[in-house]
């Protein structure tokens, strides 16, 4: 495991110390490997006289950051966010996987899926538990284990469809084609749960045969496999003289009782059900059935057809009846014209004749023909309507309506109808033509939609008027609404009062229900170094940026760049205060100092150096104070208080102009170099 070439200086002279387990470059002094795994076995003596092997346990994870600190993996220092996510994920995968009794290979595969998902950022915006469950289910599907999505949702207490959605997304994004579920996979599992004892295998085989039959009979497409399994097992159990009730089966299979019954009835409809047990075991019918929903659909269609035929026949019969009715009517009305004659003319002359009078005129007629009189009354109404129309000449829709009514009116009213007939029709024709022209014009005018003008073509205003309530109705509705929503209105009033009060007092704050700002306690520290330490603890600095490279971009004869991991931590601390031009220049001084020291002493591991840095930070700040006398007010303004806003501003500034800050940092500081020389080991 020895590296031939140093990554930093390119030197080939590398010293490997087995005792310390290090690989160090002799040219630049950078540590290339730490905690090398050796194949030697050494023994040490214990206190009690026994001996034990020397060594450490290394976890199977790739993050070999060395021994874990006291609190385990809860420290945010020293662990990258990604590594933490993966570690957490692995833990959850193992936890769930053990509950499902998956073997190690499956769990590893599931963890790999999870890693892929994280790298594709599919965990964003989703509960991690859902993603983990989806990964596990994906493994189950690819391996063909008899685990259902329902099991997972049971464990997590989550809706199956939510999990299913996540699972489908995962499968699509990872381009993994999960093979389709075969209900045969579930049979052994359910059979085992139903405890058939010795005959377990036979019952399973029978159930399998049944399933195959169901598949060929098209009962299985689009159905939950567990439902089919349940039905098959029930029948198989009965065939082998096991008494398994429906309730027991549904408890095992997790479907509803009605589903099971439905499957059984569907199976009953197939021709296979008529075979005896022995015949079934031996013979396979070649005939295939249609899917049950298809046959149900066909039945519906047939029913509809039957209904239509019936309706037609009814119409025919009704037609015959109406014919008879008409004939009777004509006969009767022929005998009545004397009574109605004067009134008929009366009706024509006076268009505003009262309906009651017309009815009354009909009343003295023969009593046996009540319905005929009603018809006559209706006709009177129609005629009034015609007259109104003639007078006012309304929209053609109404005229169309009158036209149809005109058709329906009986033969008796011919003279009147003929009078009215040509007029409305001529009018309606004329109107429709003109309206058609209007429509054509308006269609050409497409600018209307752009302007936002409402195109009133084809809109019946009067119908819309109906949608709007009258004033009285509005009052009633308002009353009802107020009564129903009294509580809400009360709450609203109280809220308004409260706001008004607060405004008076000047305390009123705009309550934004959305964002809950993270309120951090302001850091109280006596020195800049301490402040940096505390701030680093609070804010998790990204360690993905190689701060050394950033710094070295503009600096001229700088020393060789340090390693990423070690430099990044200190770099984190350097980045934070680097652009603070307002306050705490001492801060910025101390950290580059410590960084430079870092470079010269690469042998020391990360944790202790941090502490050393702060110590040096102490030392440097104390000695840097005199140098910063130029800006005493700004620097020594009491304990260093950090606010979120300040930090944010600094970060923003920094991101915009990292190069400049690095320049300031290194270019303009002679002081740092001095201290460097003094305190170098």
């Amino acid at each position, binding site marked *: 495991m020895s590296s031939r070439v140093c990554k930093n200086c390119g030197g080939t002279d590398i010293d490997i110390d087995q005792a310390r387990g290090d690989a160090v470059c002799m040219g630049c002094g950078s540590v290339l490997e730490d905690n090398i795994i050796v194949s030697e076995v050494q023994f040490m003596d214990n206190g009690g006289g026994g001996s034990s092997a020397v060594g450490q346990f290394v976890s199977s994870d790739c993050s070999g950051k060395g021994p874990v600190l006291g609190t385990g993996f809860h420290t945010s220092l020293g662990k990258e966010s990604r590594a933490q996510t993966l570690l957490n994920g692995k833990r959850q995968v193992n936890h769930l996987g053990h509950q499902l009794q998956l073997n190690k290979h499956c769990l590893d595969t599931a963890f790999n899926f999870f890693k892929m998902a994280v790298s594709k950022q599919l965990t964003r915006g989703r509960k991690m538990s859902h993603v983990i469950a989806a990964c596990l289910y994906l493994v189950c599907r690819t391996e063909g284990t008899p685990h259902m999505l329902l099991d997972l949702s049971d464990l997590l207490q989550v809706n199956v469809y939510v999990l299913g959605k996540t699972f489908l997304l995962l499968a699509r994004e990872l381009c993994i084609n999960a093979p389709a579920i075969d209900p045969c996979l579930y049979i052994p599992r359910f059979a085992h749960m139903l405890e058939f004892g010795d005959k377990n295998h036979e019952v399973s085989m029978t159930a399998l045969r049944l399933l195959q039959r169901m598949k060929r009979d*098209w009962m299985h497409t689009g159905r939950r496999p567990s439902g089919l399994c349940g039905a098959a097992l029930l029948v198989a159990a009965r065939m082998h003289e096991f008494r398994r009730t429906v309730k027991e089966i549904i408890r095992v299979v997790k479907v509803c009782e009605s589903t099971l019954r439905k499957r059984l009835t569907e199976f009953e409809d197939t021709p296979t059900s008529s075979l005896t047990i022995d015949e079934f075991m031996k013979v396979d019918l070649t005939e295939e059935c249609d899917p049950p929903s298809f046959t149900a659909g066909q039945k519906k269609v047939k029913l509809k057809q039957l209904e239509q035929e019936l309706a037609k026949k009814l119409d025919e019969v009704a037609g015959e009846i109406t014919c008879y009715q008409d004939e009777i009517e004509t006969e009767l009305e022929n005998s009545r014209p004397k009574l109605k004659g004067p009134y008929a003319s009366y009706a024509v002359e006076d268009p505003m004749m009262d309906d009651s009078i017309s009815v009354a005129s009909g009343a003295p007629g023969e009593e046996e023909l009540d319905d005929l009189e009603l018809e006559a009354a209706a006709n009177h109404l129609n005629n009034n309507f015609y007259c109104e129309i003639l007078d006012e000449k309304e929209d053609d829709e109404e005229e169309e309506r009158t036209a149809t009514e005109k058709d329906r009116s009986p033969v008796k009213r011919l003279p009147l109808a003929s009078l009215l007939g040509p007029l409305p029709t001529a009018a309606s024709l004329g109107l429709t033509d003109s309206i058609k022209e209007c429509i054509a014009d308006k269609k050409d005018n497409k600018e209307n939609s752009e302007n936002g003008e409402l195109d009133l073509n084809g809109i019946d205003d009067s119908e819309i008027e109906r949608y709007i309530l009258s004033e009285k109705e509005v009052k009633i509705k308002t009353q009802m609404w107020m009564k129903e929503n009294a509580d809400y209105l009360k709450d609203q009033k109280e809220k308004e009062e409260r706001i008004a009060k607060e405004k008076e007092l000047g305390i009123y704050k705009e309550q934004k229900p959305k964002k809950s700002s993270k309120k951090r306690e302001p850091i109280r520290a006596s020195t800049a170094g301490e402040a940096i330490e505390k701030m680093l603890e609070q804010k998790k600095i990204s360690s993905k940026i190689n701060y050394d490279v950033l710094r070295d971009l503009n600096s001229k004869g700088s020393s060789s760049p340090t390693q990423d991991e070690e430099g990044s931590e200190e770099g984190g601390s350097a980045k934070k205060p680097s652009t603070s031009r307002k306050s705490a220049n001492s801060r910025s001084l101390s950290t580059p100092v410590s960084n430079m020291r870092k470079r010269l002493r690469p042998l020391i591991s990360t944790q202790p150096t941090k502490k050393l840095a702060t110590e040096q930070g102490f030392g440097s700040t104390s000695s840097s104070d005199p140098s910063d006398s130029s800006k005493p007010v700004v620097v020594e303004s009491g304990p260093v208080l950090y606010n979120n806003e300040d930090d944010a501003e600094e970060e923003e500034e920094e991101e915009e102009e990292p190069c400049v800050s690095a320049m300031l940092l290194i270019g303009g500081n002679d002081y740092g170099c001095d201290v460097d020389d003094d305190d170098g080991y």
Partner: protein
Amino acid sequence: MEPDNDVALDIIITNVVCVFKTRCHLNLRKIALEGSNVIYKRDFGKVLMKLRKPKITASIWSSGKIICAGATSEEEAKLGARRLARCLQKLGFKVKFTEFKVVNVLAVCTMPFQIRLPEFTKSNRPLASYEPELHPAALYRIKDIKATLQVFSTGSITVTAPNVQFIATAVEQTYPLVFECRKIHI
């Protein structure tokens, strides 16, 4: 109702959803109190108004955005939307009919044969997905025309797409794929 090239398939449009903006603030309480066919959903901040003539249900927000659903054709949707705007105008709001857009069209089409779903899914792997535990139909998505088809084993297919033209294209594209996996009657 657009026939295919080879076979005359009836594509029946069952639902058209459209949106438009009125460019003016609407007082939902007023609409709720003065309209006779409205439901005021205070928790969601919207008013549901149902029209009878083109059978349409509209969700009205106070910002002036309106979603209209339930029409059976694009023209009907536009007519219904305009009717609705007219109704609001009558209630006293200065509505403008802007940015009318048909957002979604749902159509149903029946094949004269049954379809084997597992086969269909296997042959159209990334685009088709079939999860019998979740839904009885296989889901087939066409990305460029943004159409989603639900293929059932009975042969009926539900298509949703942004407009009617795309629906026809989707059915035309899918027909040969489905034809391959059809169930042959004995």
